[in-house]
């Protein structure tokens, strides 16, 4: 039953929000033509919307508090997330995996070029998300300038090709290495900083790189960027536009699989454990003999390597780069992918990237509200589901591991 108190509260909330949004939502001014437009309808919408949302909010808050109490009382919550249960069940997940695998392999053959291109974009974000996941999800370092490394890769390919005629397959590893170098160069001074300063400084670095790209015409050709970047060649043969779109799609699939493989191995290793421990408690981590600076730098530069390789891919796919592709919003979008999916969770990040990139593509009406939705999502997820929708299903070291190893 909804109590009278709650209704009263929701009512007050809705009055408050109608007041709060009044000037911005209701009045629209055009100072040039001296027109003022009154949109009273919006006020009613805000009133009703906030009235209803107030109940949802209260309900979620109550549930959250209940959860906290349970864990405090030492009770196991007992509800394993659905995703985790599915993954634990071999009968479900092996056929599922096969189905997904077949689908991805035949995707470009059954769908149009347009769809394939969109999917390729989504895959680039999968890669970016997995890379940032190392930095934010595993090591707990909030990097808001991640896009800078993406730009490094894209411009590395564009410029190397422009000046020296280097092809994609040469540029990919070079881009990766350059990314790592940039990661170390930028990371070295800033990684000593506390978490929140790190966020702002990386944001600053990201913007510096973008502004330099915009203004240093001799080097980067300014805002107009660099065009005519070749698509990848197949054994030295240049492909038609059509076949190279398909080809790029498969390259992206391969790169994503490679990324998953690497991240998966890293997180179950000595290094991965150190990252997670660092995220949990820096002081204790250092006191246990872990070199904080080195461990952070490893995470940071590995993340940068991946972003940079994704950048090379991006340049090859669009055949054109300019600074407008590398704004801070790109960084925040990648952060959204990681947060939505679940920090530290590989499957979560993949799902997050696909949902966040594909939804606005297919729901055109929604794409206008995309950034608004992302902002809301970041807040709501942090409050109600900080682990993301598919929380980390990281293998925990169970002792059975050794017993079975003994038998073999």
């Amino acid at each position, binding site marked *: 039953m909804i109590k009278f108190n709650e209704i009263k509260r929701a009512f007050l909330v809705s009055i*408050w929000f109608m*007041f*709060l*949004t009044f*000037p*911005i*939502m209701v*009045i*629209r*001014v055009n*100072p*040039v033509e*001296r027109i*003022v437009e009154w949109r009273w309808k*919006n006020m009613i919408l805000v009133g009703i919307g906030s009235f209803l949302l107030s109940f949802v909010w209260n309900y979620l*808050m109550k549930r*959250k508090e209940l959860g906290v109490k349970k864990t405090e009382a030492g009770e196991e919550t007992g509800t394993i997330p659905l995703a985790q249960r599915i993954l634990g069940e071999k009968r479900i997940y092996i056929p599922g995996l096969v189905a997904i695998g077949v689908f991805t392999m035949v995707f470009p053959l059954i769908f149009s070029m347009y769809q394939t291109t969109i999917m390729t974009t989504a895959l680039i974000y999968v890669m970016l998300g997995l890379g940032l996941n190392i930095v*934010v999800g595993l090591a*707990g370092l*909030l990097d*808001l300038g991640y896009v800078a490394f993406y730009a490094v890769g894209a411009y590395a390919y564009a410029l190397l090709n422009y000046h020296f005629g280097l092809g994609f397959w040469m540029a990919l590893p070079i881009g990766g290495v350059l990314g790592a170098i940039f990661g170390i160069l930028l990371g070295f*001074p*800033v990684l*000593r*900083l*506390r*978490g*929140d*300063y790190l*966020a*702002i*400084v990386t*944001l*600053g*670095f990201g*913007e*510096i790189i973008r*502004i*330099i790209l915009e*203004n240093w015409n001799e080097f980067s050709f300014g805002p107009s960027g660099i065009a005519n970047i070749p698509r990848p060649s197949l054994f030295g043969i240049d492909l038609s536009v059509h076949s190279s779109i398909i080809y790029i799609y498969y390259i992206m699939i391969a790169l994503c699989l490679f990324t998953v493989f690497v991240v998966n191995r890293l997180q179950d290793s000595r290094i991965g454990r150190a990252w997670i421990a660092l995220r949990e408690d820096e*002081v204790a981590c250092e006191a246990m003999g872990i070199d904080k600076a080195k461990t952070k730098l490893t995470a940071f530069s590995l993340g940068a390597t991946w972003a940079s390789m994704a950048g090379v891919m991006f340049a090859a796919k669009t055949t054109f780069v300019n600074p407008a592709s590398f704004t801070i919003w790109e960084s*925040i979008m990648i*952060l959204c992918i990681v*947060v939505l999916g679940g920090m530290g969770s590989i499957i979560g990040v993949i799902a997050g990237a696909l949902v966040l990139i594909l939804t606005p593509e297919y729901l055109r009406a929604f794409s*206008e*509200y995309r*950034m*608004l939705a*992302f*902002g*809301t*999502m*970041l*807040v*709501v997820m*942090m*409050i109600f589901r*900080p682990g993301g929708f598919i929380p980390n299903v990281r293998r925990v070291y169970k002792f059975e591991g050794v017993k079975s190893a003994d038998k073999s």
Partner: protein
Amino acid sequence: MDYFLELFLGGLTRGSIYALIALGYTMVYGIIGLINFAHGEIYMIGAFTALIVISVLTLMGMNTLAILVIAGVIAVIYSSAYGYTVEKIAYKPLRNAPRLSALISAIGMSLFLQNYVLLAQTSDFLPFPCLIPDFEFMEPYAHIIGSTEIVILITTAVVMVLLTIMIKFTKIGKAMRATSQDKTMAMLVGINVNRVISVTFIVGSATAAIGGVLIASHVGMINFYVGFIAGIKAFVAAVLGGIGSIPGAVLGSFILGWTESFATGYVSSDYEDVFAFLFLVLILIFRPAGILGRSEKYKI
């Protein structure tokens, strides 16, 4: 010499504006240890609200001085209301959560508010009327400093003095200082910490709104994005001065204002924003506690 003086005063004006915004960052950080990413947006909303009020009142044919005062007051009220609400929604539920969570929530709030204004209003730059008349007695110096700048400097000075009095001498000011020292202790001695935090957000947002109205009428145009860059620069100023320290925020703002003014005046204006960021990076590396900040060693 005149050029130098012009740049000097220009830097001072810039610095004043940064100071008005930086105060909010520093006060919030001092109390709850969070970088309030959405603070720049609060400032932007203040400016937008003022613009809307001004447009409506102008159509009604009111006289400019009355418009200026009314618009300023309404902007302050609305920014404070937004600041208060943002804290209640996005930060309060996360007070005991890991720092990273609160920070991500703050970024989300910033993104939300920007796009809220973008969608409800427009993405275009809107002209912001200059409401401050050219004072006659300023005539001889007009080539060095304008009337608007004088008003900005005086307003900033007044706000600083009022704020200092509030924090030093009033009861709520004392409660704020106590809370920033030790939240648990403050609670034990009977301070209503939630109220202190709300007041901090309200005061910080109000000064930001004043800054918003002043800079908008100085620059002459606004859009939904002005809060973000200004916010980051004000944050740089706060860090430079020593985050958590109010005199530090003011000092840092002036230093940043002058640096930008001279650098763009003598070097190049293309890289205006780069200076602020480079500054930030250098301070944080070489003097993370800022000029007036105390280096904190957390107890173990």
